[in-house]
């Protein structure tokens, strides 16, 4: 670099932009807050989601309910499809990579996807390691069932966390369990002294550095969304009442009877989650929700994927 002399040149140098910083990644997730992110499988669905007021869409080939039904290996969506969806809406587009599949993530970053979900909904590619998300410019969201899992993902560079829930079931109990568990563990951490924190970190497999941030903030240091099982406006409101920053809806929109109405109603329910009268109005006339599944009867528990 040339020698810096005088104010003008100094200012030019200071004007240099830095991409992919932690602030930029974490800050982007903050912009989704109090909003709904919807799974879509084609441009038309993406436009319906945007029209309803979604803050982003998740581009994938099959919604979780279909992945569950059809079985087989679920992989990153076709690039052509993701690109078509990116071209069809102005809101951010997310896409899923398999757990530990560094190459899928690199490809998604190369085509300019706005956020990557390293997701247990797809078939894992690595039985021990998650992607080192710190090495990417694009931000990542990951699922977590408890504080230890959330902190591990944040240590790996995830800029956003979501409950895993049990995707494709239309059954909210697992998402509730995961959010309640994180809340309980955060409260426990808040009572701990330094020595206890180190010991607890060892127990749950979490780094002390991030646990200290959790203790100070009284919450995760990144945005935390609900996901996995949201099927009605009331489900979305429930997750907001439990302290989620926003909601992912997977199969819940496009497996319902009237997707446009359901999408709109869930967006509205996230805004007025604390206003029962408004929620009643919003919930009226949404049509039938997706068909639900009992957790005990499932063959595959997606939430158990991830380490």
């Amino acid at each position, binding site marked *: 670099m040339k020698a810096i002399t005088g104010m003008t040149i100094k200012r030019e140098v200071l*004007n*240099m932009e830095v991409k*992919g910083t932690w602030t930029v990644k974490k800050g982007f997730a903050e912009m989704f807050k109090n909003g709904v992110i919807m799974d879509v499988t084609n441009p038309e669905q993406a436009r319906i989601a945007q029209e309803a007021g979604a803050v982003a869409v998740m581009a994938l080939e099959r919604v979780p309910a279909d992945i569950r039904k059809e079985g087989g290996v679920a992989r990153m969506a076709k690039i052509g499809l993701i690109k078509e969806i990116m071209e069809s809406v102005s*809101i951010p587009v997310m896409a899923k990579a398999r757990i530990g599949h560094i190459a899928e993530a690199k490809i998604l970053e190369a085509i300019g996807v706005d956020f990557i979900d390293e997701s247990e909904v797809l078939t894992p590619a690595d039985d021990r390691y998650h992607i080192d998300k710190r090495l990417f410019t694009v931000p990542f969201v990951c699922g977590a069932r408890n504080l230890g899992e959330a902190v591990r993902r944040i240590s790996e560079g995830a800029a956003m966390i979501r409950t895993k829930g049990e995707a494709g079931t239309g059954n909210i109990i697992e998402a509730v369990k995961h959010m309640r568990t994180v809340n309980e563990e955060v409260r426990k951490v808040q009572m701990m002294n330094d020595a206890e924190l180190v010991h607890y970190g060892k127990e749950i497999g979490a780094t002390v550095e991030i646990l200290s941030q959790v203790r100070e903030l009284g919450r995760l240091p990144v945005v935390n969304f609900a996901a996995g099982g949201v099927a009605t406006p009331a489900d979305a409101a429930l997750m907001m009442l439990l302290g989620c920053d926003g909601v992912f809806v997977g199969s819940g929109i496009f497996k319902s009877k009237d997707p446009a109405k359901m999408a709109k109603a869930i967006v509205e329910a996230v805004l007025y989650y604390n206003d029962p009268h408004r929620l009643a109005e919003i919930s009226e006339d949404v049509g039938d929700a997706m068909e639900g599944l009992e957790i005990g009867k499932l063959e595959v528990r997606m939430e158990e994927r991830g380490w």
Partner: protein
Amino acid sequence: MKIGVLGIQGDIQEHLAVIKKLGHEAVWIRDSDALKTVEALIMPGGESTTMTKLLKRFAIWEPLRERINSGMPVFATCAGMILLSKGIENYPAQDTLGVLDVTIERNGYGRQVDSFEADLYVSYFGDVPFRAVFIRAPKIATTGKEVEVMACFGGTPVLVRERNIMAASFHPELTDDVRLQRYFMDMVGNSVENAIPRM
């Protein structure tokens, strides 16, 4: 002072926290009744399409425009600035409030992989740079004659003021530097003398 944050969607809590930190009362605005109770308003970042649709669906859009036109001080960041603008060059069908004489290019700095942070020089803050975070940021395409440019990045205005309105392409609420919000609060304090209703 009682300062509202337009609380439809986005990083509402971050703005509320800064207002409290500066010693003012912070109000989450979810309906037009709450809007009537505040002296000034901050419009957060988030998704401009989502905010626009919900503001209209729940009849806050017009009351908001009226209050801004009658002089309520407003500070808008990112998506907030899109809402205030006269129009969006690359998405002309998306409606705006049209109260700030700038036109916008949505995501003018690129998608998320191109989001960045950089130091800016703000005209009132002397030589101490301001760290600005740009996230899928709106680019100001044109500015009207009455618009004062307070800071530029790469030759493009990124912080502007017109009468009772201040707007930024970036997110001051994502850093610990509260100079801009403090500047806005001073603007609110002086607004009795400065507010010129445009009729």
